[in-house]
């Protein structure tokens, strides 16, 4: 098999390139470490001003793109994400799956029962289980290990059992497109912001029961496609699961290089949903910044309801993100001088944004997951008669936050590079067509780092 045109041995030139490349990697890793190493995000004032850390973040992304532009051999680019290994299939044996399904339904029952119960300790535990255990910790497992939600999803189990008794096999209407899942995702996150859903067990019980009825009904009527395309939570986990190394295939489990599934795209509005994921992750951080607090107070003083401000922010930000992405795609098409349709480019580059969304989720919820781990070790140590340790944030907390963001962005840059070389023709067109995407990533890094660097305040609640 011939690969790319064999290049004549131009040893000196390539030696120079390699040396320069290594030097730049060293310099940039050095400056990035210097930047992150001197920033303590917990409470003390940072020795490096915020604007400099933010622009270093942008600089690192830009530089990593410039460095990857030296890798132009398609075989080499393919070989990075090509390896995959099968995993023993006994892990997926039907009894194990059924046991997991049954226990997830039991957990759902415990959560609902705990939140409507009268004991304050049990309802506090249920809240912790939902928000720190599931929304923060479990989501991390989805993008770090693999998407286990199709098996764990208790609503899906209930729906499939009911569907066994009553057969209503309807197919999902096409006109629904991606909008129910996008609307559901934006709506759920908006609900956690404008209501005390994170602190009130009663409200959580009401919302859980309402969501359960709706989801089980949809699952019974439309079957598996409901969970693939409409249910926002299943779709969110499926999107995050694309980043993970483990993947369920028809022949069992496969271990792949993280990000190897991100160079493709799926029809039925996947880019729009990914933009929504990216926006809700950003918005979740944005609402706890002082700037947002001031904004809400200013607008609230005029007499606009706070819930309305949150809803406008949610919708407006999503629209702006979607518009920016679509405009970037048009520019990529023009700069690269390609006739490939804008929809195809949109579809193929969308998943490169997923590692970024995952890394911001990680940075945002690391604190709450560490809190739960500290609490659990405290309870365990108390059971064995030991002292109760005082939970405190480890010294590497701030570094881990910035490092996760950096890793997410670097993976995104590489994924965009691989996608471009897979989709476009030649080497120069593949590099040039990445410019708009890299510019968007630089801008987004700077926004995201600016949010993470702010001391997180309790977002202004409505009730």
């Amino acid at each position, binding site marked *: 098999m011939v690969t790319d045109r064999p290049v004549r041995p131009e040893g000196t030139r390539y030696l120079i390139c390699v040396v320069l490349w290594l030097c730049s990697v060293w310099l940039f890793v050095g400056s990035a470490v210097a930047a992150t190493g001197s920033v303590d995000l917990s409470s003390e004032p940072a020795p490096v001003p915020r604007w*400099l850390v933010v622009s270093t973040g942008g600089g690192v992304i*830009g530089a990593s793109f*410039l460095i990857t532009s030296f890798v132009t051999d398609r075989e080499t680019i393919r070989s990075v994400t090509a390896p995959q290994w099968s995993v023993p299939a006994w892990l997926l044996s039907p009894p194990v799956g059924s046991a997991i399904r049954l226990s997830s339904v039991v957990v759902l029952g415990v959560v609902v029962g705990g939140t409507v119960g009268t004991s304050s300790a049990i309802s506090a535990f249920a809240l912790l289980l939902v928000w720190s255990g599931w929304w923060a910790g479990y989501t991390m497992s989805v993008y770090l290990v693999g998407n286990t939600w199709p098996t764990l999803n208790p609503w899906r189990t209930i729906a*499939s059992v009911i569907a066994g008794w009553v057969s209503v096999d309807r197919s999902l209407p096409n006109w629904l497109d991606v909008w129910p899942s996008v609307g559901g995702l934006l709506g759920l996150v908006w609900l956690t912001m404008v209501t005390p859903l994170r602190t009130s067990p009663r409200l959580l019980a009401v919302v859980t029961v309402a969501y359960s009825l709706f989801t089980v009904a949809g699952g019974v009527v439309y079957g598996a496609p409901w969970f693939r395309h409409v249910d926002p939570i299943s779709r969110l986990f499926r999107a995050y699961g694309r980043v993970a190394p483990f993947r369920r*295939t028809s022949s069992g489990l496969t271990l792949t290089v993280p990000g190897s599934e991100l*160079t493709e795209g799926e029809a039925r509005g996947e880019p729009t949903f990914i933009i929504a994921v990216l926006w809700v992750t950003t918005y979740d951080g944005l609402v706890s910044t002082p700037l947002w607090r001031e904004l809400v107070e200013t607008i609230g003083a005029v007499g606009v309801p706070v819930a309305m401000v949150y809803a406008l922010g949610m919708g407006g930000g999503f629209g702006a993100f979607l518009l920016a992405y679509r405009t970037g795609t048009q520019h990529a098409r023009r700069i690269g001088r390609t*006739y490939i349709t804008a929809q*195809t480019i949109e579809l193929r580059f969308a998943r490169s944004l997923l590692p970024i969304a995952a890394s911001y989720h990680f940075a945002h919820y690391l604190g709450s997951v560490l809190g739960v781990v500290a609490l659990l070790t405290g309870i365990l140590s108390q059971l064995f008669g030991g002292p109760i340790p005082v939970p405190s944030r480890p010294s590497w907390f701030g570094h881990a936050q910035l490092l996760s963001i950096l890793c997410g962005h670097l993976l995104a840059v590489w994924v965009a590079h691989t996608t471009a070389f897979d989709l476009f023709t030649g*080497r*120069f067109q593949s590099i040039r067509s990445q410019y708009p995407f890299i510019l968007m990533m630089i801008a987004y890094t700077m926004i995201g780092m600016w949010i993470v660097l702010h001391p997180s305040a309790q977002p202004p609640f409505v009730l």
Partner: protein
Amino acid sequence: MPTEYVPDGSTEADEHSRQSITANTRPTERVPTAVPDDETPAAWCPHCARPFATERLCALHLGDRHRDEWTANQRDRYESAYDDESNELFIFHLKVISALVGVFFAFTYTYAFVWS
């Protein structure tokens, strides 16, 4: 896109879409294209009829996708287009190196001023 369901019917296997990046060539694949109204393509691929904005892109495409079916003439066109592109890339990479050096020094000096 077809969806595969694993035997137990509830855990879905996502359509395994890594084929394109692992396969060496995809001569049969059709990438959807659309030519803007005010433009005329400079060339069409003789094998898959895909339009291109320049002759050179078309020649490069032959080497990317149609190595198993190309003629000697098409191979020559590809090789000369590849060499042209290599020369252009060399200039581009020189610019990239100077940009990297520039960005690095800008940050070094900024950090030096901030920390001093």
